[in-house]
């Protein structure tokens, strides 16, 4: 099988820059979200549509990002 409908974009979530990567394999859309810096994948979700997979992954990512604390340096 070849991945279809591949997309990769950057946007801001909860104040952090993230990369959202989505593709369809077979009948399933897979979405993963990584922080831009340092580039670690930290949330993912599947769905029957691109929108479903991305909205689920974004919901998780937003929740995780809200727990990231910033300290004064």
């Amino acid at each position: 099988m070849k991945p279809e409908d591949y997309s990769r974009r950057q946007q801001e979530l909860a104040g952090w820059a993230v990369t959202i990567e989505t593709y369809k394999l077979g009948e399933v859309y897979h979405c993963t979200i990584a922080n831009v810096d340092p580039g670690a994948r930290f949330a993912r979700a599947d769905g029957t549509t691109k929108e479903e997979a991305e909205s689920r992954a974004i919901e998780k990512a937003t929740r995780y990002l809200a727990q990231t604390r910033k300290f004064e340096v």
Partner: protein
Amino acid sequence: MKVMANVLVNTDWVAQHATDAGVRVVEVDVDTSSYDQGHVPGSAGWNWTTELCDTLVRDIVPAKKLEELLGKSGIDNKTTIVLYGDNNNWFAAWAFWQLKVYGHDDVRIMDGGRKKWLAEGRDLTTDKASFTATTYKAGAPDLSLRAFLPEVQQAVAGKKAALVDVRSPQEFSGEILAPPGLPETCQRGGHIPGAKSIPWGKNCNDDGTFKSFDELKALYAEKGIMGDQPVIAYCRIGERSSLTWFAMKYLLGFDNVKNYDGSWTEWGNLVGAAVEKP
């Protein structure tokens, strides 16, 4: 210095040789579920959280466990192992480093990793490959590739080795304790005194491939890392620094480079350890 020419293969090479006899492609990801979301046909999938470490004490994979993993993956001591994974090959580099610690001769990394393979629209399968089991014999660990805490402490005190912190600038400065979205795993933020900040991502192009020799040489030279003195790379748990270790040792040919896998989760939790903040 000796640059190794055969440690990187491109995606074309993998597409042509993934199922060749004597070649085993292995996916190793940060996100251990990535393999199940589609992988290179014929590839094995290794889980870094359970298969590439000691799950009882904090340590790299024990020799016997590695022998079992490689054996069930159909890998013998002469197999060409080609590693790839997500996050521009973070944990592929982690696996590469451990395989070199145990003396496997022919290990390579697919340049660009999973990101490039996907972006190129290449074949994926969700079928788990099966392999004829083999017998593998690990070598004695080569500890010249690995730095432990006392050596890092000596490096700080005596300035006999250059320390390279490959985490993000915000982790280096102590503004954050972990990459955004990931759990905090240390008590203090900042960096090891004297360390130079050279984030791992600067080794790579946008498509995930490694930069050229000249670009890498300039990157490290700008921070005074020329390969003429010992270097110790570290990050948070040792996987990002494996990638930098790989770039310095195999793409630049630095002789004396070690990966400090204790990294910030050791140093940043150590009672009394000096911490530097900009």
